[in-house]
């Protein structure tokens, strides 16, 4: 059986610059409105004010997220046309000849990874740059990151090296789809479901 592939994300290094997202758009020639990789800013905390002085007790960090090529890909399960399928390497792809653009996958995916191309009427999604990988290159987002915060590879190897954490706010509970994603958490990372902060940039997602 082929090794299943996943992404690694070092949250301690992410600056929210979105070079990953734009490199992906450039590689796949996407217009505004389609971003296979997006970056959420999560922030929270309080300020103490005492007269003229203030003391912050605040936090913020970023999460760069694409399709996680999940162990239980809900997009594949809900697709009414069987356009969505998972390969032996775990990569989830869309058969454009079958997709009718109903967007059920987009709605069902807790990461909203599949996205509609309004021009073609079909769904689109990350394939971890299959063409690049076939040529021995890293996926565009991974190669782009100025901070070297992204990685990819066989998920078993990534987990052996970096642990198994994927449950960081504002990401959903990994139990839903079992994402092939490993995160080295930011020092202020909040556990999924803790609700201690808020997504500061909802309009950018």
């Amino acid at each position, binding site marked *: 059986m082929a090794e299943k592939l996943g992404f690694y994300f070092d949250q301690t290094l992410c600056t929210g610059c979105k070079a990953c997202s*734009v490199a992906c758009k450039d590689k796949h020639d996407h217009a505004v409105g389609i971003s296979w990789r997006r970056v959420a800013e999560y922030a929270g905390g309080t300020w103490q004010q005492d007269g003229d002085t203030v003391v912050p007790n605040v936090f913020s960090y970023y999460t760069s997220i694409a399709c996680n090529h999940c162990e239980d890909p809900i997009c594949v399960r809900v697709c009414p046309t069987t356009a969505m399928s998972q390969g032996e390497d775990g990569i989830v792809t869309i058969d454009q000849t079958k997709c009718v653009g109903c967007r059920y996958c987009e709605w069902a995916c807790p990461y909203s990874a599949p996205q509609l191309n309004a021009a073609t009427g079909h769904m689109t999604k990350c394939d971890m740059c299959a063409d690049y990988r076939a040529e021995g290159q890293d996926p565009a987002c991974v190669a782009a990151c100025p901070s070297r915060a992204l990685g990819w590879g066989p998920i078993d190897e990534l987990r052996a090296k970096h642990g198994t954490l994927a449950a960081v706010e504002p990401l959903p509970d990994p139990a839903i789809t079992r994402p092939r994603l490993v995160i080295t958490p930011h020092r202020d990372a909040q556990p999924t479901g803790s609700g201690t902060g808020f997504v*500061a940039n*909802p309009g950018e997602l």
Partner: protein
Amino acid sequence: MTAATTEKPPTSGIPRRSFLKWSGIAGGGVALVGTGAAFGLLPGVGPANAVTSTVAGSTDEKTVWNACLVNCGSRCALRLHVKDGSLVRVDTDTTGSQDLDGPQLRACVRGRSFRRRVYNPDRLKTPMRRKPGTKRGAGEWEQISWDEALGTIASELKRVIADYGNEAVYYQYGSGVTGGNITNTAWTRLLSTLGGYLGMYGSYSTSQISFAMPFMYGERIESNSIGDTVHSKLVVYWGDNPVETRMSGGGNMWNAQKSNKDFKTRTIVIDPRYSETALDLADQWIPIRPGTDAALVAAIAHVLISEDMVDQQFLDTYCVGYDEEHLPAGIPAGSSYKSYILGTGPDGVAKAPDWASPITGIPVDVILGLAHEIGTAKPCAIMQGWGLQRQANGENNCRAVMMLPILTGNVGIHGGGNGSREGTIRFPLARFSIDNPIKTKISCFMWTDAIARGAEMTDIADGVQGKKKLDVPIKLIINVAGNTLVNQHSDANRTTKLLEDDSLCELIVVVDNHLTASARYADILLPGTTNAEEVDFIASEYSGDTAYAIIADQAIAPLFEARSHYDMCAALAAKMGVEEKFTEGRTQEEWRSELIRKTSASVPGIYTEEEFHDKGVFRVSNPDGTFVASKAFRDDPVKNPLKTPSGKIEIFSERLWKMAATWTFGDTKGDVITALPEYVATWEGAEEAKTNDKYPLQVIGHHFKGRTHSSYGSVDWLQEAHPQVVWMNTKDAEDRGIVNDDVVHVFNDRGRIELPARVTPRIMPGVLSVPQGAWYSPDAKGVDTGGCINTLTTWHPSPLSKGNPQHTNLVQIEKA
């Protein structure tokens, strides 16, 4: 270009993205703030005229090296993928290491969007002139030929030089191709061959520190490199934000992250914002009221002196003016730094933490803790950013911060530094530029004054250099690859009014790729090529302990009628009879070969031009390991004196002492020159904010990830990734009933901008930040819907350098 790149954004249907499943979504999406050009009368510009390739049917497929040339302080390599004459993909450096030495020059988000900058609906396509009889800036244009455009410029240059002299010609500050070599200096080379032009000193980035630091050190000297912090016990980023302002994956962001990750040195960030440097690297974040840095320094100094943590031997050996025993002869008693700090000087105020606390907004115990850490960490690296000097009396702020390494003896040693900005080694690249024969200069910020009242401007009132006073006002402006004519200068509403009057400045030539806010005020508008359409030879900038050269090869033919700066200047030179002097008989490509040849004479082992085409980037590592500022002076101050009059660090500057007595100022609060780096309360400063009921909020303009200044400001991918917003603290928002993503107005007596609010705990209460560089776009009511910070800033210069105080502003904010 391929069909897909002109694809319109999907407009049908509401996204069904299920982010509501994510925790913490407070509201729905927000529309992008439109900054596109709404100037329908301009032929050929606008979304309806989206760019297509000029080369059809060819089958070439290639990848060439190039570089991003904008003024971020980094310099990234780009790999341009070309198919059928069109750019189809923009990659970045594929060479180099993943380490501090010789890193891969991974382009940031802006460089990665380069294709949309080249193929942009705002691209200027043909030369144009302002329609005769219409007001400058009205947006009515006529397409003209290159021959006519250059003919007009030639005759106007001749006329203005004959009528007013060369000092009436001004080459405007601009940095859109600052990383360029031939392309960045073609126009100044041409103007110099014509007898020169009114010069400028300073820059919109560093006016105050560039002017002030030489009074202390004899010249502006950058601090140790970030890589040198591997030797430090404490790192303080004081208003310094390399992770956000120098985002290259081979520049200072990378150096800061990598050294922090590998060595985990304790790091403190002082900034009104929880910047990305704070978010990524800080063990402690200390928010400070903008413009009060000198007060915090004074309080730290008070603790260091009171608790005997100063390096007295260093101060005695290397410095002038620390204590009464080391004042220059003839200076009154009580004028030393120590007297100022302890309150035994003329003001009689001890600068203890309880004095600084209400000014800076920092509690006494935090100041004490910071002072103890700086006083005991040996060695300690303090690096200051340039935001705190871009203030009403920023000259004193930046000099003040440089006092801390002096007091603690951290200057000139590994792991320490001089408290200026992080340093770098430079690549000795041969340059295309030649010197301006005219030596009269104004501050880069004073050109609006020089248009309005040039002949009144003097040395002691306005900072004119090279002459006691200007003889003539500015009558002709050449503005190349820059947006300072409107967007990046202060008080855009006032500036555009000035420019509208063509009896003052009689001709404005703008050369650019895009229809910027500045381009709208041109009389003659020339379409320049992007760097994808020409060749050049590029040097690294603030890269730390690796310096490098990048070859820039032409990827595609010039779009439409665009011409390179070199070619247009060569054609103009021919019209003015100086072609041979300008070109020396070479084409742009031949000049590049010449510059590579000249460079190779001083850089052993550098690639041949042939090798450069293939390998792209040639790197040189710092032979000393990591850069230490003023090491020779520290090692032997007698043999290697500084360039100050005393040869030492002048904490008390006798030159400033004299200037304080001779330079003239109005009665504006804060307009003073002090011999010591004192804290000065200023107009529209933190203290005034407390009593200003109308405009109680300070607003600064941080550098933004989606733009470099205003460059890349019209790129749709970047507007999507980094929409323009104003940062405001949660409490200030609650007080005004504002929630995240509400559209708000930020305003003062100078103007009003409209943009969404980013309600966030990441900025201190009482302070707003409007990311600088958004394109000024006033609507019919005069509301700037582009959200340009400079709609709110002022022409009033800082006192010593006559520089731009663009982070000193008081405003109010309300829901739109």
